[in-house]
């Protein structure tokens, strides 16, 4: 059963249909997925968290919260 997307085979399809996405949260998450973690696909170097993995650990939420909202110092 395929219940989640497979980046190897599905990224292009996600890109193709992403314009149809109306939900802003999902749009942001799908965009990040397509562009490998960056919230700024036009210039990933402007996204301070771009070089990080989808690294969400640990219990310090301030950190991951900043990451989710695409901000750094």
């Amino acid at each position: 059963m395929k219940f989640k997307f497979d980046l190897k085979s599905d990224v292009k399809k996600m890109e193709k249909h992403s314009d149809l996405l109306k939900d802003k949260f999902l749009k942001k998450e799908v965009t990040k997925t397509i562009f490998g973690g960056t919230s700024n696909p036009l210039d990933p170097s402007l996204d301070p968290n771009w070089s990080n993995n989808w690294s969400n650990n640990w219990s310090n939420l301030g950190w991951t919260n900043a990451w989710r909202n695409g901000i750094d110092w």
Partner: protein
Amino acid sequence: MEVKIVVLKIASRCNLNCSYCYMYNLGDKTYKNQPKVMSKETIKNIYKRIIEHCEEHNIKNFGIVLHGGEPLLAGQKYIEDFIAIGNNMSEGKIAFKYGLQTNGILINKEIVDSLEKLKIHIGVSLDGPKDLNDKYRFYHNGKGSYDDVIKGIKTLLNNNSYRDRLGILSVMNINLNPIEAYQHIKELNVKGGDFLFPYGTYNNPPLGKEENVENTYYADWLIKIFDKWYDENEETRPSIRLFGDITTSILGNDIMADYLGNKNNEVLVVETDGTMEAVDGLKSCGNGFTKTGANVNSHSINQALDTPLAKLYHYSHKHLCKKCKLCPINETCGGGDLANRYSSEKGFDNPSIYCSDLEKLITHIQNKIIDRLPTELIEETGIERLSVEKIQTLRNDNIKNDQTTYEDELLGHFYAK
């Protein structure tokens, strides 16, 4: 094995005495042997070990979480000196990213300004409205902590940097109305929060799991919040980490978190005396359970990782019991948090006590995501809508048809001898 984050118990004591705390009140009493704050020598040795590890594994960015006990008991000057030592020793070769998890009580403007200059990300622990928070999160004399924590949060929110960055961590309490719990986080005007599953094991189960672990009280609680949250304006609602993580995973990304996901847990905890151990939540499995004997004064990070518990934690989403191994959604739930799988009889060779909850919650969120994705995308990618019945049927069929005898040395290590 690589570590990219260390959690440092810079202060071993706490000004609060929360009833459920895994540091003090879930069976582990080893904090009593710890110095109150980490010594300067230990701090230097920690940085030495981190730098050595980063050089060996070519790691450029490294996370340091200042933790406790209550880390602010160490004092503002202590934290400033701490970071200065790291900067001097690394000579700019490693970019350290700092976090601090606090109960918020000692926060004042001067400390906030100092932490902002040091670019330390802050998370505050708070368990909901005053009556509930004060029932579980209280001082050693029994007085509730809510009013003082709120004062600290407000001071943080008066600072421009922390207004956008602060996150609130709440341990779930299924006795509280979930919408009230969510509204409470929202009303604080913070940008993000999360609800943590309470630590507990098969021997020492959390609220609601005493009679059986098959019920879904926690999923039901979270689903009520999710549905409200999901229908709110994305720009004004707080981000909720757990919901974001499950969404990210459903979209195909790998997630590194100890409570779910599929990546290795690249985290190590350093106690106040410099001893290194697997994650501190495992203290809930019993007195001294996490002790390895490795200390930054005499051992490298690699040596500390070379113990069964550290290895099992590091690869916790790969070393799964048979039920989880054959479950179709294990790439997202990852078998749940390692500590929540523990029983004194079978060690960690069990599903999580929250297995039914994770199954239901992941199913619900996956369905809601599918509802808002373009039909064309769903059809082209062949994504199927999950249901709990479907998961269970598939898993049961897999178990029935699987004749493999699984021998997992690490899981076997923790069986009752």
